């Protein structure tokens, strides 16, 4: 890639189109954080194995630190800042607070995004389902037992509502 070899990229973030003036191979994470000031999506490892940068792209979990903005063109990107507009996302947030999940809180945006995606795809996740869906998100403070309990409570309440 040579100097000046980029074009303005249009990204749809949380329902709004944004023109991003960065090289097309810039990871989505840095477009969100540095260009758009959406710092809720976090940097933890840069190689997609810690989950701190988890967003939704077209409804699926994605690790923004390894997705070039060129790959996000034409797709719907949802970040933690907008997840409360999703009914499941809002329930996950409320359950997180009710269970006192966050300690330092830095990983929790990614955890909430991963949990919301899990519950939108599978409203009755087993322990194994939760393990699989959430094992991509590291929490150094050790909030895992409460994450599990919070997910299960949302699942139970999703079950009650038809």
């Amino acid at each position, binding site marked *: 890639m040579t100097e000046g070899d980029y074009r303005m990229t249009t990204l749809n973030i949380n329902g709004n189109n944004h023109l991003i003036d960065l090289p097309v191979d810039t990871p989505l994470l840095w477009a969100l954080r540095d260009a758009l000031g959406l710092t809720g999506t976090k940097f933890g490892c840069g190689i997609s*194995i810690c989950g701190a940068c988890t967003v939704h792209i077209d409804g699926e979990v994605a690790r923004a630190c390894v997705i070039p903005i060129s790959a996000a063109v034409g797709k719907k990107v949802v970040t933690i800042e907008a997840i409360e507009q999703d009914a499941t996302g809002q329930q996950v947030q409320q359950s997180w607070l009710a269970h006192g999940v*966050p300690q330092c809180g830095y990983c929790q945006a990614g955890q909430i995004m991963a949990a919301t995606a899990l519950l939108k795809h599978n409203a009755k996740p087993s322990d194994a389902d939760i393990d699989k869906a959430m094992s991509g*998100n590291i929490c150094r403070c050790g909030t895992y037992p409460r*994450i599990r309990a919070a997910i299960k409570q949302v699942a139970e309440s999703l079950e009650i509502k038809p």
Partner: protein
Amino acid sequence: MNKPFDSAELSADDDSLSIINVSRRSFLKEMVLGGFVLAAGFPELLRADEVAPVGTKYGADGMPHGWVDNPLVFVAIADDGTVSIVCHRSEMGQGVRTSLPMVVADELEANWLHVRVEQAPGDEARFGNQDTDGSRSMRHHFMPMRRVGAAARQMLEAAAATQWQVPVAEVRAEQHRVLHPATGRSLGYGDLAQAAAKLSVPARESVRLKNSADFRYIGKGQLGIYDGRDIVRGLGQYGIDTRLKDMLYAVVARPPVFAGKLLRYDAKQALKVPGVIKVVELPSTPPPAAFNPLGGVAVIASNTWAAIQGRKALKLEWEKGPHGNYDSIAYKTELETAARQPGKVLRNEGDVDAALAGAAQRVTAEYYAPHLAQAPMEPPAATARIVNGHCEVWACTQAPQLSRDQVAKWLKLPVENVTVHVTLLGGGFGRKSKPDYVVEAALLSAAMNGKPVKLTWTREDDLQHSYFHTVSLERLEAGLDDQGKAIAWLHRTVAPSISSSFGPDSKHQMPGEQGMGVINNPFAIANLRIENPEAEAHTRIGWFRSVSNIPHAFAIQSFVAELAAAAGRDHKEFLLELMGPPRKIDPRTLGDNWNHGESPELYPIDIGRLRRVTETVAQKAGWGRQLPKGCGLGLAAHYSFVTYIAVVVEVAVSEAGVLSIPRIDIAVDCGPQVNPERIRSQLEGACIMGVSLATLGEISFKDGAVVQDNFHSYQLTRIDDSPREIHVHLLPAPTYDTPLGGVGEPGVPPIAPALCNAIFAATGQRIRQLPIRDQLRKD
């Protein structure tokens, strides 16, 4: 110290009634009491190993700048009744930004829903000690914060009484209002704030604290964390999230080997990367490392990714320096060699050699624990700008005043010209106590003529250039009599010391490290000798949540289980026998003059409490119950940060040697429980951090450099590996006049030995080297 007449403040040294000319928002007024330039170092950790001199200060009094209980420093009330409470300790997940303001609010009779928390900038002369380390925040500042709230409440009551022209004894504050029950009148705090601020602060002796029966928040564990709503919506502001107008972004390429130097660099390609603005060399300093930046080459760019890409394009040549051969495998052999010979004697009782020679049975074991990296999920980051000779910094720092002092020193500014704003910390665990990264940001801003620069450490930077937890070899030798009772105990502890990062390498552990379970081993054994042979440091040694308690507890509590097995006795009974009968031990009689910086009178080693957590956890975990093949229970108990913890871990090990942890029980005696809900969360987290370091964590060195560079090589426990159930058993809390114990760290050390003891019970396999990793695997 002479203080201006109208700006005297209550502090630890000032008992006089102060007359204060206050403005409505007076806690924002600058009050310069004279700049203390805080020397780097840890006075209480480095105290010489001799009896503490007369007049030694303990607890909060012994910390730089002690404590402050002036309500005008910590409380402001707006006309609309909003109560702003300052939190002067750094929030890194332990809940202090909720718990300490909660204490103020309770005594103040403020309604928590109308409370705002403001984070204090770095200013210890104003706020008291801010160094958030050592599990001290609540135990040191609980009483000062109670007095803050109570004094402010009394001022509001006095203001109301004056306004109503009634005796102050007839009024009382209740949930954000002052009432006069006799006439049914009441006034909200907002209505009283201006009048109250004109009054003098009550003398400390006249401050009336609540009866604990009247607590609304303290002891209840009912409040969610203050920043909870922001955090779950992605609005929490961490150091790495700082954004300023026209801000630049930087990363630094640092010497791969500690104390290595840059020989030459070529920035031609780096400067061609889109977004890269400048490449700057940062000076290195000769050892000791202290809090100095490591030096290297910085890439400054218009966004973080450009800076990272720019750094990749640098051509760099390094001189390795004196530690270029540091190799963990070879070093382990050095530690073993040292441990197998006599070393500096720390403690000697009875005649260990004779008792060993005459013992019916002798057991020897060596335990190895590698370097660890704290690896907080938010890597170190800081933002600095310099305007008109004033440097402003935003940092996720555990040490705001130290950050301020170091920036002032490096920029050659008076301390008053440096402001350190403390953000939320995305984890700390000891890494963010060291402001080397804060200094880097300041230097880079200076290199850009004061423009704001955000300096970010990548994960690779964090893992390769940390202040690592030490590496250690603990050799234990014991003799049992023909009744299976321990009659001789020889412990040789070998590990490079934290002190090597701050001064000439003494090659011995300092009193603080010795006092983390080694010298203050309370076991009732007549013949006991503790030695500390030499170990040289070859990297920056720092502290990691619970520090040297980790290798010391791993070794001692594992060894206890090995002795019990050798004696054919129940482990719990054997451990209780070693502890001896309930009694209070003056730590000085064990040679420990440090005692976590606390008074030996207020904080003796209380064997009754140690026995009680042990008995409690054993009972709750069903100690002695029959388990299926491949399953087992392991026990460990450890006293650290003046708190008593005992743990039972239940494991299941499959035929193929895959380890799973169905359950951990942890019993906690930390004295009074100010915020039980956050105590529980801290202990749950400590269990998982303990599992992580025991099963996966290792930082190793080869050819001088750290081998691990990201989470694929430095692995951390994830949700699928974590204990399925964690049961925290808080012992019944004593009254609030009992001295408090630490909470943030003491849960970590007993986990590794309890886990390894459980594995032994389940499989017969004895783990003596951490991490466990694949040691159990049969495939």
